[in-house]
């Protein structure tokens, strides 16, 4: 019994190894499993993101956002940083999405999304521009400087984690609070009464 099971897994392992070898000329120097996982996560992120942008119903759009966050958490797992992945789930799905949902529930919202209108062409162009900005600005830096990024020690104790957050990663850690500040400022700006009676 035990023997058959181990044989089964051995043959499965051989099969995967063969597949990897046959694909090696097409994709040199790549781990096939990691590549497949990357492709799956990219599809999840894209699907979720498109749902979030194109859905007429606000709650469905928010579910698209949840799916996107799940995909991003998967990317972090693929980068071998499970702590960051779980934090992504805890903060973005457990807190941010729930608060968005709460805001949707407090407004008048019907399930057929009667209040949504298709955006103007100018807005669509601006949105595409905004989406292209991060990869165009940050992409070359990441591509060039990938070798400079030091390898991290795994988070195996709280002392280790705290030291990392307050020494080497201090700048990104503080920059996250700027993002929260921007979100808060945006909310205040939207709620502020606009002079001249804006219709939005």
């Amino acid at each position, binding site marked *: 019994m035990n023997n058959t099971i181990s044989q089964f897994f051995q043959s499965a392992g051989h099969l995967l190894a063969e597949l990897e070898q046959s694909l090696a000329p097409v994709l040199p120097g790549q781990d096939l499993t990691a590549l497949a996982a990357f492709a799956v996560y990219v599809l999840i992120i894209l699907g979720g993101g498109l749902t979030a942008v194109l859905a007429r119903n606000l*709650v*469905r759009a928010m579910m698209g956002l949840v799916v996107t966050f799940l995909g991003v958490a998967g990317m972090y797992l693929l980068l071998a940083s499970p702590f960051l992945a*779980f934090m992504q789930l805890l903060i973005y799905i457990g807190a941010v999405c729930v608060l968005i949902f709460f805001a949707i529930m407090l407004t008048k919202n019907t399930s057929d999304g009667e209040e949504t209108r298709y955006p103007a062409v100018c807005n669509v162009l601006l949105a595409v521009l905004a989406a292209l900005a991060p990869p165009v600005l940050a992409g070359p830096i990441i591509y060039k400087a990938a070798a400079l990024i030091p390898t991290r020690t795994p988070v195996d*104790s*709280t002392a280790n984690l705290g030291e990392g957050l307050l020494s080497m990663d201090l700048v990104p850690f503080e920059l996250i609070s700027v993002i929260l500040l921007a979100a808060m400022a945006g909310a205040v700006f939207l709620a502020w009464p606009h002079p001249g009676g804006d219709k939005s």
Partner: protein
Amino acid sequence: MDLSLAIFVQIIVAVLLIIGLMVGNAVVMVYMERKVAGFIQRRPGPYEVGPWGTLQAVCDSMKLLAKQVFLPGNVDFILYYLAPILAFLPVLLLFLPVPFGPILTPLHINEGIVLILAFAGLGVLSNLLAGWSSNNKYSLLGAGRAVAQTVAYEIPMILALLAVVLQSGSMDLAKIVGQQGQYPWQWNIALQPLAFFIYLVSLVGETNRAPFDLPEAESELTAGFHTEYSGMGFALFFLSEYANMLLVSFVCASFFLGGYKGPFLDGIWWTFIKAYLIMFFIVWIRWTFPRVRFDQLLNINWKWLLPLGLLNLWLTAVLVKFLV
């Protein structure tokens, strides 16, 4: 390749066993809840089906399996069917880092407690989704209460767990259990009594159980967020609610009560005895205390548990800094 395949198989086997544990737990808890409620209210509880009514829960689950899954009109059916599935699936992952016995931990992971807290967040989302997509004012009110309550009670719960994490210097449940001794005075409850108390109160709030069962208050909201669900839709919510109760009990046992360690002989039996004693405690207070009002519920949390949790965390930090 072989190592990752082995871990993959390990996770699959663990998830299958966890499904068995969830179903078995629901059957045991339905019987226990009805029997304990009966004794507390001076009536016998179920006693017709099987010896001492033990087969009652099995009959109930057969009935649930056979019932029609009803779809109300004017409902966003994708979200309506997604909600119970979203309630059920994350629970399967929640049990992975729990150390059931000295060697029996489904998945060794350094960030165990963070994994549990992260995937528990999906449960709140499913409650909200169920309440919103039912297109029913009772469900919507229940969902609104669920979010305000769960978001509030998550904070003292995390603060209480954080104090223990700070003290033991690890987020791995197996390591936290490993640092505790065999006898009750060597458990974390002796070092962190305040954190244990805060955790015990907020776990009742977090699992939406009476006296904090505002999201599904029967006498006010029919059944709260799952009013419109019948058959297996309801059964999935029901299963995941009991599984969540079991999970917070396991976490409580591991963090504060020494997990699998106990007098005479360490082993899986101590984990289950401790977890089910906490489950009994949850059932006991459900049938003893009346339901609180919503403002009272939030006042307990924001005015008492949160300051106490912060104070406890600060004290722990000072003690860890100067004593260890």
